[in-house]
């Protein structure tokens, strides 16, 4: 029986190998390609497992987890397209994520009618910041929003002349720009880093490492929390977060960081340990910070306000923390 299958299996494997060799070389390096393949296989396995579980136990719908898996399919497919086409296209995609996140932030906070033009100026920082990131002009990239736009926005605002609510308006705007644009733009700068700094596949591999670990960390903390979570770790901010979930998730993330580091990064074993801890705890912090902001504004998680446009802030919350943290960790060590 087994021998009868050996021929066709070998034939099929050969055909697949030839097909892969015939494919045009993708923009991203081989290591990233294989990790993407790993993502698709992982998602396929999870999807199949859920389908089997549902067949065996039709009473339970597994709806929440099915929705999560479905959104991960979308994310992985979109990420493949965003990274696989061209470098400039990847940067435009990340800039668009920044734009939608900043737009969502502005839609949630109170704004003053007088500041219409100031808000327009704030938006104008997005194309400039991503142009600087894409061109690899580090000196200007790193000060443009924290220095130039930090000064320009209150300047524009004071020239309009409305003093009522001035400090609140300018403070809210600066925080949004730092979180949604400056922080996230570090992902784009990873793509502009010199190839030589990472022989394992340049900036694309680093970006992939960062985003994959951050997303995986979210899931790992969620799953660990569901399985063994008991003690609440931030009861007043996010009652769903447990110490066991946090530590379990970080442990899984660190393990994965160590496993993937030789493939995708120039990091040594100890460096990778540090990167894993940074992404594990950083992702948690980014998550609860955005949660705290939403609570302050009176928006509950999964509120109807995010129906339809999916709530991008909730998707990138961990990255607002891990992107700059990981970037400067790697930049300090290897560039």
């Amino acid at each position, binding site marked *: 029986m087994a021998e009868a299958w050996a021929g066709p299996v070998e034939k099929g494997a050969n055909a697949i190998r030839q097909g892969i060799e015939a494919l045009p070389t993708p923009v991203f390096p081989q290591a990233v390609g294989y990790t993407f393949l790993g993502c698709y296989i992982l998602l396929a396995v999870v999807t199949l497992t859920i389908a089997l579980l549902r067949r065996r136990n039709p009473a339970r719908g597994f709806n929440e987890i099915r929705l999560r898996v479905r959104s991960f399919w979308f994310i992985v497919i979109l990420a493949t397209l965003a990274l696989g086409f061209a470098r400039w296209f990847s940067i435009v995609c990340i800039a668009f994520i920044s734009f939608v996140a900043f*737009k*969502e932030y502005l839609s949630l906070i*109170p704004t003053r*009618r007088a500041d*219409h033009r100031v808000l327009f100026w704030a938006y104008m920082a997005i194309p400039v910041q991503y142009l600087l990131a894409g061109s690899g002009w580090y000196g200007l990239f790193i000060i443009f929003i924290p220095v130039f736009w930090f000064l320009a926005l209150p300047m524009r605002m004071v020239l309009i002349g409305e003093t009522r609510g001035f400090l609140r308006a300018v403070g809210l705007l600066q925080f949004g720009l730092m979180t949604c644009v400056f922080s996230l733009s570090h992902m784009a700068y990873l793509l502009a880093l010199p190839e030589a700094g990472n022989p394992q596949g340049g900036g694309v591999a680093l970006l992939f490492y960062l985003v994959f670990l951050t997303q995986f960390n979210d899931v790992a903390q969620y799953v660990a929390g569901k399985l063994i979570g008991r003690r609440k770790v931030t009861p007043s901010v996010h009652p769903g977060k447990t110490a066991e979930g946090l530590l379990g998730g970080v442990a899984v993330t660190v393990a994965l960081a160590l496993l993937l580091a030789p493939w995708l990064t120039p990091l040594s074993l100890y460096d990778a340990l540090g990167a894993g801890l940074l992404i594990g705890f950083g992702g948690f912090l980014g998550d609860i910070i955005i949660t705290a902001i939403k609570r302050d504004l009176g928006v509950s998680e999964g509120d109807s*306000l995010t*129906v339809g446009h999916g709530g991008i802030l909730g998707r990138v919350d961990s990255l607002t923390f891990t992107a700059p943290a990981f970037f400067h960790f790697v930049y300090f060590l290897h560039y």
Partner: protein
Amino acid sequence: MPPFLRALCRWAFLILVAWPICLVVLGMNVRHRNRLPRQGPAIVTPNHNSHLDTLAMLTLFPWRQIPKVRPVAAADYFLKTGLLGWFSLNFVGIIPIARKRGADQADPLAECYAALARGEILIIFPEGTRGEPERMQELKSGVAVLASKFPLVPVVPIFMHGLGRAMPRGAFVPVPFFVDVYVGQAMQWGQDSAGGDKKTFMASLATNMRILGEKHERPEFD
């Protein structure tokens, strides 16, 4: 302009202007989309805060219906200059009405009657003007006149929030904000006018629009 050319103009306006601005730059967040009329004749009555309101309303309908979706707009504003008038009539597809009625004029709503008789969907801003951004104003009674003449035509109240923040009166460049749209349940002359009273009908329309808006937690804006 022959009808098919006008339809092409309206699709061009939808695809090149309304969709990019409302779906990419702004972002629409529509509740109860299924309450929108599938086909005409029908009247939808959103609140009015911004020039962008009309664009936002157009994106709510399937593209195929767009040639039959007609925003009702003030003649004194949109037909002021020849170019704006030509563009408004052919690309936006407005039905111009006179806001102030002269002594010698015919019924200002005559074109609306004709449009409803042809089975078109009218977009009427019952506030009549954009006014203060994100503040509802008293409603004009034109909708009640139309509803009394066409008692079977559904009148769908709509509440929108965000467009006044994105482009208030006096601003010329839109600033991106997410837009929230609440579609209300269709009203009908027979049920909501309490035996044919226009004032009662307008009062219940105003109440329905206000209730739609009250459901929404809005950040302050002033």
